[in-house]
């Protein structure tokens, strides 16, 4: 309940009084904004860094889905519920940008149409092997899985994707999570009913890639859409179940990624 109330509060702040006079960012807005005036992009402990990657087809810029509202709104919750010194605004970076190495937490979504360039493969591989932590979100069904599996196989061919069990420390890093909730996209969530975007009913999955020392490098949220829950949490009609779970798992992934 607490998380719901606070998340709602944060959402109200977002929707009714945009920070520092900036217009509310709508879902259609995909521009990459510079740091807001008055905010210092340097010197903070945590940046919710979104991966800018290459894609193909109709959604070749799928990295921008929910951007930046989901990012910024999620950060309101992160700053409210934890004492992480988090940068308040969106922070996108290209996978082939050397600056990426300064930000050990990385978020990428809609990877079903990901098509990494050689430079991006090299950049992401170096990032992960050096100690970076990647969270994947919002891709559905076997077709998109196979595309992601292929792409990540280009990056880390020697490491398999495995299931993360419910008793893994990731799921108790901050909140105790004892079941996986399938978070639907905002349209399905608003209508109620089915929660999947697959051709047939599918279950949410939490998978990961571990390094040689059994350290988690990549967390994969498949058949679920945490980003939409972060993005629309301020709406009164948005189901609490989804937003609560998305915030809990999102914060757990950050805390775990900062300490393991």
């Amino acid at each position: 309940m607490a998380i719901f109330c606070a998340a709602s509060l944060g959402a109200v702040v977002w929707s009714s009084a945009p920070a520092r006079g900036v217009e509310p960012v709508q879902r259609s807005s995909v521009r990459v904004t510079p740091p807001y005036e008055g905010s210092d992009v340097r010197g903070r402990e945590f940046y919710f860094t979104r991966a800018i990657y290459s894609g193909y087809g109709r959604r070749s810029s799928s990295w921008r889905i929910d951007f930046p509202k989901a990012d910024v709104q999620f950060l309101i919750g992160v700053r409210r519920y934890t004492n992480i010194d988090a940068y308040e605004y969106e922070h996108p970076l290209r996978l082939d940008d050397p600056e990426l190495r300064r930000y050990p937490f990385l978020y990428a979504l809609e990877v079903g149409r990901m098509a990494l360039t050689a430079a991006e493969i090299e950049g992401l591989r170096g990032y992960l092997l050096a100690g970076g932590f990647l969270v994947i979100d919002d891709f559905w069904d076997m077709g998109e899985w196979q595309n992601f599996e292929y792409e990540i196989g280009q990056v880390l061919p020697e490491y398999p994707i495995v299931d993360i069990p419910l008793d893994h420390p990731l799921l108790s890093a901050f909140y105790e999570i004892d079941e996986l909730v399938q978070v639907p996209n905002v349209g399905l969530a608003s209508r109620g009913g089915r929660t999947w975007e697959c051709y047939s009913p599918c279950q949410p999955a939490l998978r990961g890639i571990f390094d040689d020392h059994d350290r988690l490098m990549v967390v994969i949220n498949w058949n679920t859409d945490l980003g939409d829950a972060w993005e629309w949490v301020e709406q009164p009609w948005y189901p609490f179940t989804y937003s609560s779970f998305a915030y809990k798992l999102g914060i757990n992934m950050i805390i775990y990624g900062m300490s393991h």
Partner: protein
Amino acid sequence: MRSLVETVFEFLFKYRPVVFENGQFVLSAPWPVLLLVAIGLVLVAAPLLSYLRLGGKLSTADKALLAVLRVSLLAVLVFCLLRPMLIVATVVPQENYLGILLDDSRSMQVADDGRARSDFIREQFGPEGSDLLAGLADRFKLRFFRFSESLQRVSGSGELTFAGSQTRLSHALDGARSELSTVPLAGLVVFTDGADNSEDRLTESLMQLRSRGVPVHTVGIGRERFENDIEIARVEAPRVVLEGSAVAVDVMLTHTGFAGQTVQLNVEDDGRIVSAQEVELQGEGEVTTVRAHFEVTETGPRIFRFRILPEPGELIAENNVRDVLVQVRDRREKILYFEGEPRFEVKFLRRAIAEDENLHVVVLQRTADNKFRRDDVEHPDELAGGFPTTREELFQYRGLILGSVEASFFTHGQLEMIAEFVGQRGGGLLVLGGHNALAQGGYAGTPIDNVLPVVLEPRLTNDSSTFFSEVSVELTPFGRSHPVTQLAPTPEESAERWAELPALSTVNPVFEVKPGASTLLTGHGDGIEKAVMLAAQRFGRGRVVAFPVQDSWIWQMHADIPLDDMTHEIFWRQLLRWLINSVPDQVTAAVPKDRAGIGERLTITTEVVDSAYLEVNDAQATAYVTTPSGLEQELDMEWTVERDGEYEASFVAGENGLYEIRVEVNRDGESLGTAASYVDAAEPVEEYFGSQMRSTLLQRVAEETGGRFYTPQTVGSLPEDVRYTQSGSTVYEEKDLWDMPIVFFLLVGLIATEWGYRRAKGLI
């Protein structure tokens, strides 16, 4: 051979200086003194009046000069008529004893004067005899002793071996004085190089001899300065380290005749060279200090050998080698890392030390207000209540890392306890930078401020937003040789590596370290110059390090750092190992040195504290000494009373080899802990170190006891000089002074001067 000065003195004054030093001046006129004075006055008055009557022929100055000459002449005559003499005590021939102490140590084999020092002793006291021996034997009954680590009576030099492993001058003087205490003793004569290498208190021995009136004459054999020699004067190494640690050892070299030359220093572990480097020697008289770096890979007591490869023409090769015993521990040391907020530093620090089996970092991290997470705790109850509130709870750790956590989080009692963790418990404290660390965390004026090696900026409190800078670090001259900052096998390569590392960020500007603290790294960047980036100091029994950066993980993650680069891991492992390397346990065991002579008695000292690190005086401490052959000796240790928690016992190291000393301490049937120490018993090699002839020491011995100092060149006058002494059976001799040649020369000189002056003035 006498010196020229002494020869001239004796020619002019008839007697040698020693007679004047020991004699008492008296006048022994055969006539009444008043008569002599009256005659003298008349004799003085007559010439004075005659000069005054000369009228205008002479000036007043001329008259005065002539009068002075005449009066002086007459005064000398009167002095002679008064029959001046010295009363001097001399020994009665063959009624007194003289102790002859001959140095039988190995350093007497040194051939620094073209031949071995021992040759001189053999010549003087050999069966063929010598003038010196004959001169002494004519006057005294001689008693010979040889001394090195002990004193023994001998009949002559034939029993000397010059193989003694130690020179104990004080012990020898005490022994000889004691042995000859029942006979009339005229003095002691010590033939030695003076290369005393004992820890005995010489002052007390000299005071005893002085109070008993026994003069000690010393004969210094050998040179005060070697022509060509290199010596490892000292090696400063930690006595206990963790397995796998990088160790830095200071080696101090002295030399004569090799200034500016480059020599090779090797460090050997069981015959295997673990470090080799070239060293350029400083000028003569200066100590060349070099730091040797190596990694300890084998556990248990290890003897590391430091060796300077001998240079051609070196006088002594044995002093180019020194052994040091280091106890290498293989155990997991526990460190508490308390972080006030989620930070990537936690993740990357844990990764850096993950494969170090000797370090166990327990993390307590505040993730939200009043919400904590714990990582790597040993049991469910560990830190369940948050940061420790009792000494027992905190002092179980050997190190403490404080991250970005504000001082107001702690109670005053906890702040004091952290300071005591360092000062009393001897733990290691590492303070990291961050928004809530150091001055920004409000630590100025707190008990922790007292222990920090850096000066906190009082202006910068709780206002971290005012400062942020990316800083490139730079190794200081001190850091070049410090074990924490060695990133490569050699200091040069290490310095190059540091210069290549990417910049870190800091929100804690620190520019000053406290007196006694050392700066290892400085930083420069936007708006910041010469900032302190890594500083350390010892506080009480522990060590404290300040590392005011917030993202050392950049040295792991940065795009310029190759994936297989180990800089970040090496730095953290070395830093944490150094931080806790010297942290004491509840029970410690120590012997005064790691290398002892065979037959030497050694004292084991144990310090005992309880789990709160308060001294315990009512414990039962037992030492188990295992000899090199495997025999175990059990010793009850006694509380010393002088110091709380300190217990002692002693044993004699009678075998050649490594002794293991294990101490077990119990109180009320419960174990307070155990400790181990080691000592290597072997033939001491100290005789080859500092073996130059020490004239200063020998002169002091002579002067403080009323004796004289000689060299082989001046020792010929010894038999005559030794006669003049107050000790033993003596008679008093009268030595006339009126017939000294100088009196005659004075009279002639005065007469000639007066005559010449008068002739020059036309008076004759």
